[in-house]
């Protein structure tokens, strides 16, 4: 029977590279290697996950007991705003970008993404955006405090200060980064597949990544427009969001949620993909209803553009719009249900094993389903009117985003880290992490359902002792400490495994897909030869189905590797200068900022010219 040892016999490819890769820090600054950019994204995501968690810990301490005055007013609002902004844009999204950067090319048998330098540009623009948002603490001594949804006119100059300028500036950079990444990965997945990898043979995780790249490319422009209009209002004094001039507060809500709801699916679909990859490996079966899982993911992405109004049932859109958005929202339950039943079908009556990755993948299903069910309640406008802006909603989206998205990503870390580092994570620590996190998560967020039903509103920094909300709030705060402890344990496990972990080998899980046929960590060129794909589970069939072996070519392949480049960082920096120029347009301390816009624009033109004429 064939085994993956066959691939080690392949001839090493012959390299062509215009300029050699640099070493040390310079390598990380100029790299265009999708694996290194993936590690940068993942590392940044983990860092911001801890920061966002710390922010949550602080405001949960404030809410632990009634009538406390530790973090109040704008400090509390700032913590809440930055907790959400950080978790959505700076923690979960870059972790997803990390997985998609590292694994999409590997899963489709490609050498890199379609546009390696554009990929580096996305990363540096993300990096600039993440620093810009948080820089308000440095320059203004305060966080933006208008909520992560930043409802205008609350964010106009009349009602908010300088920190909001950092907020729109940072988010605009993140939007540019995501749109460019979206275009890059759409092309990568559609065009760079190994020979024989027809669309239905593309791994489910890569499929979900394809769907979210479309969502990123098409849903960020509306919020970019909303942010630009906000920037114009704040910088130049246009009147888009001023109700006194005939402006309508609905405008921002439409532009924001037309982005905001597809964004929710950007956060959850990759985790669904990770679960769909892990379950078949540890049940030793193909994924039940493989095509249905793919099509339902595509359908979710598609319908995702037509449901944004359910965030606005209380905004007074009128009964026809309410009814339309209620029905489109209810439709989302169908493809989601298809996925859930297929995952259960995959596990049903199988000989499962339970490493930590599998535990997280299994617990994803009921936790996400709970969040999905409470979401279905919000599809009904009359129920939504009762629940809007209460802790019931907070419970709902944390079940989806923590119990769903984050648990899926944790599963991904335990499953894929051996490929990235070549070392296994510690299973004992992993299981402690899993159980403490799962218990902590439920202790935190389940009581919030009750709090919401008992009428506790969101976004208040304290509450009276006789409101009847004391026990649940104390429980919730206790649960956050459990989650924080578990997450720190996870980070400890991750770091120590790099040194002490058992060697993973190429294929530690006896898995199905192409990324496991190359060494761990993979060489710069990913594969010694381009694999030919004959089925949905190419590596499984290579190992266990006679006649379906992946052929190993006899002569060495010639490959062209992309060269390191400074140009992506130049373009990011120039684009950043334009944004900083707008941010300080009329000047700080008498020095006008508008010349920066001109310098930045010229910088973009110059560095793009240098980019296109640079030999690769």
């Amino acid at each position, binding site marked *: 029977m064939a085994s993956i040892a066959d691939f080690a016999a392949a001839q090493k490819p012959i390299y062509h590279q215009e300029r050699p890769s640099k070493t040390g820090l310079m390598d990380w600054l100029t790299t265009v290697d999708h694996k290194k950019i993936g590690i940068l994204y993942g590392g940044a995501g983990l860092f911001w996950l801890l920061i966002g968690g710390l922010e949550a810990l602080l405001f949960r301490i404030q809410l632990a007991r009634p009538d406390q005055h530790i973090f109040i007013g704008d400090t509390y609002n700032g913590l809440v705003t930055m907790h959400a902004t950080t978790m959505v844009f700076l923690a979960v999204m870059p972790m997803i970008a990390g997985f998609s950067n590292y694994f999409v*090319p590997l899963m489709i048998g*490609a*050498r*890199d993404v*379609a*546009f*390696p330098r554009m990929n580096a540009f996305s990363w540096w623009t993300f990096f600039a955006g993440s620093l810009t948002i948080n820089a308000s603490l440095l320059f203004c001594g305060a966080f933006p405090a208008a909520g992560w949804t930043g409802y205008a006119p609350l964010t106009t100059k009349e009602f908010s200060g300088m920190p909001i300028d950092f907020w729109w500036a940072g988010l605009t950079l993140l939007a540019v980064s995501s*749109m460019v990444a*979206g*275009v*890059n990965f*759409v*092309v990568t997945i*559609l*065009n*760079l*597949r190994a*020979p*024989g990898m027809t669309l239905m043979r593309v791994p489910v995780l890569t499929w979900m990544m394809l769907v979210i790249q479309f969502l990123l*490319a*098409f849903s*960020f*422009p*509306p919020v*970019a*427009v909303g942010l*630009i*209009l906000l920037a*114009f209002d704040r910088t*130049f*004094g*246009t*009147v*888009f969001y001023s109700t006194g*001039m*005939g*402006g*309508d507060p*609905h*405008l921002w809500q*439409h*532009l924001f949620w*037309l982005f905001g709801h597809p964004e929710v699916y950007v956060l959850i679909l990759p985790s669904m993909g990770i679960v769909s990859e892990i379950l078949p490996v540890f049940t030793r079966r193909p994924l039940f209803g493989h095509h249905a899982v793919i099509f339902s993911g595509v359908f979710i992405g598609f319908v995702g553009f037509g449901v944004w109004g359910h965030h606005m049932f209380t905004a007074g859109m009128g009964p026809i719009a309410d009814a339309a958005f209620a029905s489109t929202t209810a439709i989302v339950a169908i493809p989601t249900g298809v996925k859930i039943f297929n995952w259960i079908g995959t596990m049903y009556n199988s000989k499962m094993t339970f490493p930590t990755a599998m535990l997280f993948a299994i617990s994803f299903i009921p936790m996400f389903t709970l969040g999905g069910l409470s979401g279905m309640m919000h599809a009904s406008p009359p129920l939504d009117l009762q629940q809007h802006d209460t802790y019931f909603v907070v419970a709902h989206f944390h079940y989806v985003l923590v119990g769903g998205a984050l648990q899926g990503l944790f599963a991904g870390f335990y499953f894929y880290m051996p490929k990235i580092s070549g070392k296994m994570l510690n299973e004992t620590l992993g299981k402690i992490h899993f159980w403490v996190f799962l218990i902590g998560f439920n202790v935190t967020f389940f009581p919030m359902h009750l709090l919401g039903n008992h009428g506790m509103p969101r976004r208040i920094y304290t509450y009276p002792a006789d409101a009847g909300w004391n026990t649940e709030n104390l429980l919730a705060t206790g649960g956050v400490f459990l989650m924080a402890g578990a997450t720190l344990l996870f980070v400890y496990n991750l770091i120590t495994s790099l040194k002490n972990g058992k060697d993973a080998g190429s294929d530690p899980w006896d898995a199905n897909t192409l990324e496991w046929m190359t060494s761990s960590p993979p060489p710069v060129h990913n594969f010694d*030869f*381009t694999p*030919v794909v*004959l*089925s949905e589970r190419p590596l499984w069939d290579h190992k266990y189905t006679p*006649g*379906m072996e992946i*052929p190993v*070519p006899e002569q060495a*392949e*010639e*490959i*062209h*590797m992309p060269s390191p480049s400074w140009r992506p960082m130049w373009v990011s920096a120039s684009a950043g200068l334009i944004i900083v120029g707008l941010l300080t347009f009329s000047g700080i301390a008498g020095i006008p900022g508008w010349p920066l816009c001109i310098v930045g624009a010229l910088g973009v*033109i110059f560095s793009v010219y240098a980019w*296109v*004429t640079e030999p690769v």
Partner: protein
Amino acid sequence: MSAHADTLTHDSHAADGHGALSENNFLGLPNIKLAMWAFLGSECMFFGSLIGTYFFYHGNSLSGPLPKDVFSIGITSISTFLLLMSSVTMALGVDAMRQQKPMRARTFILLTAALGACFVGFQVVEFHEFYTEKHLIFAGPNASLFGSTFYTMTGFHGTHVTVGVIWLLIMSVLITKKKLVPGKEAVNVEVMGLYWHFVDIVWIVIFTFVYLLEFLK
């Protein structure tokens, strides 16, 4: 299954030489062209949001002037005509590049850039007239909702035309310096053409719905 494997030998793939990074493609469409189509989809959402904002606020202005007071269809028709003609010269440029006639292509590319620049010039004159003579104000205490939405929407379109003109000029420099291989890299000119036609189409939408429909009835 095995029949499928026979048709997909390594030899056919190794012919790409550059592995996954250059002309290798599964859909038979060059990467850069596919990327442009995806980007233009993204741009549709961008201009859709801007034009949507204009119509969301149409008639909401509490102070004048109103669209009918400022638009002059005659002048804008001329600039629209120039932009439409630039699509013709763009198409001729792309065609010349495909036929490996780089100098002819450069002539048409420069002609396209000139027509695009004329359009931007008309827009500058139009903005100046609206602002000084018709008192349609973009920002500040005298601004109106119509002013803010109109200047932002058409301004972003004008910016796109300007970016296109710069792109055309850079391309003509590359052709002059022979940094663009006529047959193989004709796709770069074609992709620039896609962008140019898209920007043109956006203007047709704006001219029809924002300008012309104002005078219906």
